């Protein structure tokens, strides 16, 4: 089974999501970024687009307007504004 990490999605208005996931794809300025557990610590500027998280079979999607991703080894925090918020 794939290793999991914690995903936290926060907007200025409220926390949106918190759970452990196996993978994450997010829209960076120069193309999509994939994140798995134990990713090297990073800070990524996000543009408008779709964020997709997978937990084994399940997948979830959010439309974001932009923001920042804070990637740590065991946790990724998305600091974003949502489309239509």
């Amino acid at each position, binding site marked *: 089974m794939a290793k999991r990490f914690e995903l936290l999605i926060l907007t*200025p208005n409220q926390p949106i999501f918190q759970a452990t996931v196996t993978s994450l794809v997010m829209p960076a300025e120069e193309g999509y970024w994939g994140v798995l557990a134990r990713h090297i610590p990073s800070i990524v500027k996000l543009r408008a687009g779709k964020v997709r998280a997978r937990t084994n079979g399940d997948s979830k999607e959010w439309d974001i307007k932009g923001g920042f991703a804070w990637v740590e080894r065991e946790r990724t925090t998305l*600091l974003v504004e949502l489309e239509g918020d």
Partner: protein
Amino acid sequence: MPGKSLRELRRRIKAIMGIAKLTDAMKKVAAARLRRAQRQLFASRPYVEAISSMTESIFFPNISHPFFEEREVRRGGIIVVSSERGLCGGYNMNIFREVEHLLGGVPDVLLFLVGRIAQRHFARRPYKIGGSFSFPSLGFSMEDILPLARASIGAFLQGEIDTLYIVYTHFHAPGALIPTTRRLLPLERKAEEREFLFEPKLEDLLDPLLTHYLHSFIFRALLEASASEQSARFISMDMATQNANRLLQNLRIQYNKERQALITKEISEIVGGAEALKGG
């Protein structure tokens, strides 16, 4: 004449009942607004705290950006966060006292005033005003604070001020009004160098990241202040209602005493008159 004092007492009782009703209604409004302000504050804190931790984790010793520039302080900028309306006890005075304290430490000052009460307070004082701003006391967004953030941060970048502070009331608990001063600029290099991947590369990422970090902090300070203001208004209206009720109780006792005295006097006059007639 006792009749007149009874009428006077009745008039005062009625007036104070009106005041108590009014302050009680204001208290209930403030309680509802406090709940809303608190909800918004608590929902936003995780975002702002994460932005702060993330951004501060790369304040490496060798990082370079104009926001880190330490200059000799000739003029300091202060963002003063007050309220739009009064009737909130010592809320604004606490802030002004904190600002006066800070003013002692800088040779010259440029003020950015939030709220009508601060604008009125500083209008008659000899300080230079960099801008005046007003926000709805509830339900403002990150975008609403941009004019304030741009004006104050821009003044630092243009060298008009050499340091920037924000003075606001941090919301610890309802009723605890603690004026708080925080230095926004220049930023302090305090993180340990670590390996990090940046996308885009650091020199392109830094400016939007640091700007957003500062904006988020200003946004948070205004949310903290808004919850504090509502709680101050609730407490001050609660105290006013209690005082009015206490006064009302005293007046009613006095009124009843007067009325009793009047009745006693009338009865004794009638009895006295009857006795006199019998005797005659």
